[in-house]
C-alpha cells in the first residue's frame, strides 16, 4: 500500500502547483485541487481497507531515516486511517459544494483549502508534539483564510476573534511543549508516554499547559464564543469542514495527549466534556439562528466525545467503537446539516419550512437528526448502548444521568426544529436548485446509512439493518412514487404474512399482542384506502412503527427490545406529525417517549452490569440492592408509553390532532406496547420492595388515579377526539391497575382490556373521524341528529359504547366481571375505590359522545351529509362483528393465555368448560345472558312495533315546546357543557396540575438558557479573557481534586 506520507505530500504539492498556474486557468486549478483531494481520500481509503481486512496493526512512517527521538514519525493505524478518510472526503465534498465561490476567489482559496485538509490529516498522523503544533497553526491560519469565503459581512469579526484565540492557544502550547521537552528530553508522544517520570517531578505543569491548549482548540464550553461566531457567519461548506474535519482531528490529538498524561488526567477530560455536552445543549434551547444552533450542537457533541475519551480506561478496547461511532455520526450529520443550510435563504429556524415541497431533502434532514440523536439504525445508537452499559457496569451512574439528560435536551430542540420546519406555513424563498450541492448532501445521507450498516455489523448485538421487519419498512422508501392503493395492499399483505410467519414462535401472551398489533394494524390500514394520491411519507413511518412493534414482541435480549422500542417511537412520531395542527403535541410526545426510552436504557444498563448482550430473562436474576431501582426505571419508562397520570399530557393532543386513520393506530395499538413492556417486566421481576414501599402497590395507585383522572377529564371535553383520547388514558389506567394487582385474574383482566380497548377504541376513532370528515368539525356541539344520515357510523358507535361501558351483553362486561373476581383476592383495597367511581363516569362521557353527535337536533348545514366513506365504514363493521363474536365466546382468545398465566400465578385460574365460565367466587355464561336479554328485547320490541304500527313519523321540531315554536336547531340542541352538575361537584379534580408542572420545568430550562447565553458578549477580547479564565479554573480544579 502506498505510504501515508503521500497524503501530506500530494496536498502540499498540489497547493504549490496551483500557485504556478496562470490566474485565468480557474477551471484547471479547480480540477487539480479536486484531483489532489480525491487522491488523498483514495490513499486513506486504501489504508482503511488494508488495516480493516488485515491484522489491523499500525504502521509507522519514519522521516529523515532515523528513529523517533531525533526525527518526526507518523503513524497510520486503523483509527488514523478512518479519520483521515473522513477529513479528506469532507474536504473533497466541500470543495465540490464550493465550486462557484472557489471559481470566484481563484487559486489562493484553493490552495488554502488544500493546506487546511492536509494540515488536518497531519494532526491525525503525526506522533511528534512540535509537529502537532505546526499542523495546528496551519489549520488556524487556513481557517482564518477560508472564513472569508462567506458572503456574511460579520465573518470578518469572527475571523479576527478566532485568530486572537489561536494566538493565546499558541502561547500556551509552545510553553507547554518546550518545558515538556525539557523534562523528558524527547518530543515524541510515544517516547514521552513511556517516561512516566514526567508526571512526577516538575513536568506536570508543562503537560497541563499542552493538554489545556489542545482542549482549548476543541472549543470547550463555556470559553468558545469565538468558535460559535465562526460557525454562524462562515460559509456553510466551510463550517461543515470545520465541525467535521478539524474537530475530529483535534479530538484525536487530545486522545494522543491523554496517552501521555495517563489515567490521572482522564477525569479532567470527562469533566470538561460532559460540562460542555450538557451546557451547550442547554444553551441551544434558546437559539433561533439555525447555523448558530448547529454550532452549539457540534460543540456539545465534541464535548460528549471528549467525555468518552475520558472514559477510555473503563471502556477498554471498545472505546474506539463507541467514540468512533459518535464521532463519525456527528461529523456526517453536522456536515450534512451545514450543507443543507447552504440551500436555504432565511437564517430563522422556521425558514427551513421551505423544505416542505422536497421529500428527498426532508428525508435527508430527518436522517441527519436521527444520526445526531443516535436513533436506530444509526451508529450513534450502538455506541450509546455500549457506552451506557459499560458505564453502568462500573457504577458511574451520575455520568449516565448527565449523558442521557444532555441527549434528551438535544433531541428536544432538534425535533422542535424538525417539527417547525415540517408543519409551520411554508416560507416564500425557494430552496436553491443546484444539483451538485444536493448530490453532496445525498452522498452524506448515503454515507450515514452505510455507516449504520457497518456499525451494526461491528456491534456484537447483531445488525439492526438485517432485521426483516425494519428492511420491509425501509423498502417502502423505494415504493414512495407508487399510488396509495398498491402501497396499502403491499403493507397489509406484508403484515399478515409476517404474523403468519412468526405465528409458531409465539407463546399465548405474545400471540394476543401480536394479533392485536399486526392483524389489528392490517385491519386499521384498510381505512387508509380512502385517501387518494401518493401520501408521501405515510407508509415508511407507519411500517417503521409496525416493524418496531413486531420486533418488540419477539425480542429476546435487552438490545433488540430497546432497538424495537425506539424504532416504534420514531415511526409513531412521524405518523402523529402528519396531522394539521399536531406539531406541538407530536413534539411533547417525542420528548416524553424519548425520556421514557432513556429511562428504560438506564434500567437495562443497571440490570446488565456491563454485559452488552444482556438477555431479558436476566431481569429475574438481578441482584437485590439494585433490583428495585431497575424495576422503578423500567416501569416509569413503560408508563410514559401508556400515558399513566403525570406522564399523560402528550396523549390528548397527539391522538386528537392525528389524521383520521392514524388516531386508531396510535391509540388502539401503540399504547399496548407500553402494556407489553409492563407484562414482560412484571413476569420477569415480580413485585419489588424499595425503602419498604411495595412498588406494585405504587403502580396500583397510579393505575387507579389515571383511570379516575382520565375518565373525569373525558367527561368535560367539547372535542370528540380529545374525549376519546382522555378515555384511552382512563382505560390504560384500568389495565395498569389489573396488571399491578399481581394475581391471576388481574393479569387476565389486563389482557381482556388489551383486546377490548383495541377493538372499541379503533372503532370509535374511525367513526368519529368519518363524522368529522363529513361535517368538517370535531366540536360535538356543532354536530347533532346524524343518526338518520350516517346509520352505519351510529351502529358502530352504539356497539362501541355498550361494550366500553361494561353493560352486560357485550364483552366489556367480561372485563368488569374478571375485575371483580380479581379484587376479591387482592390485598390492597383503597385504590379500588377510585376504580369503582371511574367505572360509571366512563358511562357518562360515552353517552355524551353518542348523544351530541348522532341524537338531538340536525343542523342546517348537515342536512345533505352522506354516510362516512366506504373504506372507513368497512373496518368498523368488521370490528363490530368481531366484538359480538368475542362477547359470545371470550374463551376463543382467553383460554390458552389463562393457562399460560397460571405459570406465574397458579391460584385463581378460570374454568372454561361448557357455557359458563367459573371462577372461585362466581360464574358467568355470556351466551345465556345474550340469549335471555335477546329474547326479552326481541319480544318487547315486536310488541311495541305491533302496537305502534300506525305511528306518525314526525320531524325534528315536532316537540312539545310549551306551545311555542322552537327557534333554530342550534338553539334547541343541548350539547355544550353537557355535564354541568358534575363540573360543579367534581370540577376541582380536573385542574391541569400536571400540565402546569411540566410547563414550569420547560420554562425553567428556557429561562436558564436565555439568561446564561448572555455570557457570549460578542467582544473578541472578552473571549480571550474567558479562555485564560477557563485555563486557570481548570488548573485550580485539577489541583484541588
Amino acid at each position, binding site marked *: 500500500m502506498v505510504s501515508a506520507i503521500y497524503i501530506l505530500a500530494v496536498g502540499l504539492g498540489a497547493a504549490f502547483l496551483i500557485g504556478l498556474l496562470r490566474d485565468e486557468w480557474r477551471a484547471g486549478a479547480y480540477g487539480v485541487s479536486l484531483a489532489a483531494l480525491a487522491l488523498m481520500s483514495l490513499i486513506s481509503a486504501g489504508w482503511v481497507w488494508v488495516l480493516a481486512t488485515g491484522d489491523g496493526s499500525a504502521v509507522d512512517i519514519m522521516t529523515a531515516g532515523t528513529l523517533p527521538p531525533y526525527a518526526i514519525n507518523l503513524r497510520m493505524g486503523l483509527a488514523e486511517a478512518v479519520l483521515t478518510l473522513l477529513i479528506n472526503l469532507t474536504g473533497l465534498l466541500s470543495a465540490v459544494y464550493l465550486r462557484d465561490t472557489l471559481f470566484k476567489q481563484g487559486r489562493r482559496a484553493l490552495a488554502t483549502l488544500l493546506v487546511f485538509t492536509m494540515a488536518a490529516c497531519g494532526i491525525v498522523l503525526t506522533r511528534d508534539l*512540535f509537529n502537532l503544533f*505546526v499542523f495546528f*497553526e496551519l489549520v*488556524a*491560519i487556513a481557517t*482564518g*483564510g477560508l472564513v472569508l469565503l462567506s458572503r456574511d*459581512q*460579520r465573518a*470578518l*469579526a*469572527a*475571523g*479576527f*476573534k478566532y*485568530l*486572537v484565540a*489561536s*494566538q*493565546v492557544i*499558541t*502561547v500556551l502550547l*509552545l*510553553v507547554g*511543549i*518546550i*518545558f515538556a*521537552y*525539557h523534562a523528558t528530553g524527547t*518530543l515524541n508522544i510515544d517516547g514521552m508516554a513511556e517516561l512516566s517520570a514526567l508526571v512526577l517531578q516538575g513536568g506536570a505543569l508543562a503537560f497541563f499547559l499542552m493538554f489545556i491548549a489542545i482542549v482549548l482548540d476543541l472549543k470547550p464550553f463555556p470559553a468558545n*464564543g469565538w468558535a*460559535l*461566531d465562526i460557525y*454562524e*457567519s462562515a460559509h456553510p461548506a466551510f463550517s461543515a469542514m470545520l465541525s467535521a474535519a478539524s474537530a475530529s482531528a483535534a479530538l484525536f490529538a487530545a486522545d494522543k495527549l491523554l496517552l501521555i498524561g495517563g489515567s490521572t488526567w482522564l477525569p479532567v477530560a470527562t469533566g470538561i466534556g460532559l460540562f460542555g455536552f450538557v451546557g451547550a445543549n442547554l444553551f441551544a434551547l*434558546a437559539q433561533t439562528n439555525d447555523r448558530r444552533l448547529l454550532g452549539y450542537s457540534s460543540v456539545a457533541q465534541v464535548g460528549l466525545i471528549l467525555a468518552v475519551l475520558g472514559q477510555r480506561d473503563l471502556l477498554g478496547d471498545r472505546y474506539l467503537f463507541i467514540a468512533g461511532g459518535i464521532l463519525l455520526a456527528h461529523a456526517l450529520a453536522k456536515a450534512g446539516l451545514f450543507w443543507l443550510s447552504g440551500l436555504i435563504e432565511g437564517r430563522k429556524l422556521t425558514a427551513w419550512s421551505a423544505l416542505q415541497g422536497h421529500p428527498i431533502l426532508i428525508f435527508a434532514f430527518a436522517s441527519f437528526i436521527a444520526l445526531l440523536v443516535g436513533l436506530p439504525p444509526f451508529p450513534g445508537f450502538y455506541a450509546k448502548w455500549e457506552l451506557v452499559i459499560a458505564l453502568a457496569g462500573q457504577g458511574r451512574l451520575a455520568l449516565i444521568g448527565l449523558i442521557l439528560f444532555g441527549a434528551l435536551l438535544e433531541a428536544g430542540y432538534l425535533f422542535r426544529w424538525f417539527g417547525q420546519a415540517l408543519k409551520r406555513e411554508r416560507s416564500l424563498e425557494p430552496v436553491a436548485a443546484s444539483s451538485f450541492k444536493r448530490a453532496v448532501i445525498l452522498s452524506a445521507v448515503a454515507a450515514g446509512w452505510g455507516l449504520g450498516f457497518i456499525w451494526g455489523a461491528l456491534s456484537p448485538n447483531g445488525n439492526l439493518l438485517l432485521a426483516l421487519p425494519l428492511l420491509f419498512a425501509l423498502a417502502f422508501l423505494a415504493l414512495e412514487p407508487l399510488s396509495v392503493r398498491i402501497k396499502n395492499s403491499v403493507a397489509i399483505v406484508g403484515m399478515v404474512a409476517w404474523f403468519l410467519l412468526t405465528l409458531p414462535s409465539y407463546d399465548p401472551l405474545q400471540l394476543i399482542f401480536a394479533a392485536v398489533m399486526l392483524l389489528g394494524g392490517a385491519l386499521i390500514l384498510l381505512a387508509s384506502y380512502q385517501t387518494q394520491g401518493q401520501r408521501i411519507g405515510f407508509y415508511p413511518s407507519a411500517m417503521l412503527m409496525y416493524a418496531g412493534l413486531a420486533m418488540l414482541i419477539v425480542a429476546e435480549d435487552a438490545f433488540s427490545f430497546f432497538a424495537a422500542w425506539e424504532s416504534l417511537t420514531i415511526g409513531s412520531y412521524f405518523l402523529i406529525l402528519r396531522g394539521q395542527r399536531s406539531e406541538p403535541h407530536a413534539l411533547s410526545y417525542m420528548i416524553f417517549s424519548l425520556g421514557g426510552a432513556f429511562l428504560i436504557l438506564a434500567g437495562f444498563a443497571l440490570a446488565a452490569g456491563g454485559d452488552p448482550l444482556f438477555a431479558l430473562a436476566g431481569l429475574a436474576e438481578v441482584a437485590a440492592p439494585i433490583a428495585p431501582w431497575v424495576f422503578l426505571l423500567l416501569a416509569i419508562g413503560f408508563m410514559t408509553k401508556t400515558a399513566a397520570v403525570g406522564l399523560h399530557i402528550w396523549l390528548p393532543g397527539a391522538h386528537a390532532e392525528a389524521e383520521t386513520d392514524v388516531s386508531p393506530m396510535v391509540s388502539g395499538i401503540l399504547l399496548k406496547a407500553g402494556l407489553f413492556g409492563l407484562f414482560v417486566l412484571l413476569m420477569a421481576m415480580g413485585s419489588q420492595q424499595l425503602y419498604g414501599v411495595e412498588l406494585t402497590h405504587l403502580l396500583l395507585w397510579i393505575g387507579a388515579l389515571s383511570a379516575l383522572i382520565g375518565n373525569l377529564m373525558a367527561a368535560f371535553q367539547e372535542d370528540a377526539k380529545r374525549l376519546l383520547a382522555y378515555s384511552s388514558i382512563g382505560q390504560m389506567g384500568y389495565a395498569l391497575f389489573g396488571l399491578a394487582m399481581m394475581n391471576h385474574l388481574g393479569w387476565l383482566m389486563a389482557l381482556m382490556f388489551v383486546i377490548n380497548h383495541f377493538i372499541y377504541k379503533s372503532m370509535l376513532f374511525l367513526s368519529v373521524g368519518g363524522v368529522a370528515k363529513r361535517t368538517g368539525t370535531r366540536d360535538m356541539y356543532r354536530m347533532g341528529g346524524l343518526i338518520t344520515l350516517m346509520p352505519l357510523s351510529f351502529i358502530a358507535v352504539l356497539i362501541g359504547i355498550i361494550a366500553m361501558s361494561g353493560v352486560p351483553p357485550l364483552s366489556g362486561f367480561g372485563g368488569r366481571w374478571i375485575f371483580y373476581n380479581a379484587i376479591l383476592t387482592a390485598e390492597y383495597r383503597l385504590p379500588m375505590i377510585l376504580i369503582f367511581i371511574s367505572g360509571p363516569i366512563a358511562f357518562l362521557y360515552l353517552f355524551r359522545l353518542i348523544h351530541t353527535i348522532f341524537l338531538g337536533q340536525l343542523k342546517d348545514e348537515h342536512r345533505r351529509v352522506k354516510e362516512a366513506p366506504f373504506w372507513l365504514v368497512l373496518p368498523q363493521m368488521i370490528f363490530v362483528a368481531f366484538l359480538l363474536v368475542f362477547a359470545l365466546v371470550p374463551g376463543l382468545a382467553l383460554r390458552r393465555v389463562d393457562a399460560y398465566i397460571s405459570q406465574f400465578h397458579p391460584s385463581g385460574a378460570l374454568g372454561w368448560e361448557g357455557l359458563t365460565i367459573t371462577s372461585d367466587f362466581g360464574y358467568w355464561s355470556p351466551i345465556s345472558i345474550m340469549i335471555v336479554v335477546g329474547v326479552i328485547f326481541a319480544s318487547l320490541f315486536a310488541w311495541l312495533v305491533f302496537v305502534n304500527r300506525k305511528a306518525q313519523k314526525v320531524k325534528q321540531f315536532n316537540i312539545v315546546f310549551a306551545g311555542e315554536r322552537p327557534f333554530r336547531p342550534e338553539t334547541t340542541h343541548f350539547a355544550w357543557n353537557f355535564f354541568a352538575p358534575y363540573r360543579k361537584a367534581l370540577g376541582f379534580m380536573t385542574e391541569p396540575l400536571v400540565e402546569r408542572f411540566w410547563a414550569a420545568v420547560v420554562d425553567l430550562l428556557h429561562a436558564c438558557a436565555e439568561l446564561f*447565553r*448572555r455570557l*457570549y*458578549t*460578542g*467582544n*473578541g*477580547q472578552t473571549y*480571550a*479573557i474567558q479562555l*485564560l479564565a477557563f485555563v486557570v479554573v481548570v488548573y485550580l480544579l485539577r489541583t484541588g481534586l
Partner: protein
Amino acid sequence: MAYIAMTTGFVLILIGLYGALTNRNILRMIVAFTVANTGVNLVMVAVGYLHGRTAPILDAAVPVAEAAARIIDPVPQALVLTAIVIGVGVTALMLAYAYKLYESKRTLDISAFKDLKW
C-alpha cells in the same frame, strides 16, 4: 545568572498578554501578541541553555567529535526557527484582518464588532 533569559522571556509573555487583553485598539492588540510571541521564543531558546557550554555551531572551534560535550541543546533552537516563521504568518494575517475591519466599520475598536453574540 543563567535564568535571566528565561525570566525576561516570561516577563515579555505576561506584558504581551496584558497588552492584548486590555487595549481596545486592534493594532495595539496585534503588537501585544507579537511581543508575547517573542517572549515565548525567548523562553524556548532559554530552555536549551546548559551552563558553561557554547553555541551548537560545528566549525573549526567545535569539531564534531567532542561536540556532544561542549555545545548546548540544539533542538529548542531549531523549534524557535519554525515558531518565529509561524508567528510572522499569523501576525500578517491579523494585520490583513485589521485593515479589512477598519475598512468595513471605519473604527479599530474591538468592542465595535459585537453583532455576532449570544
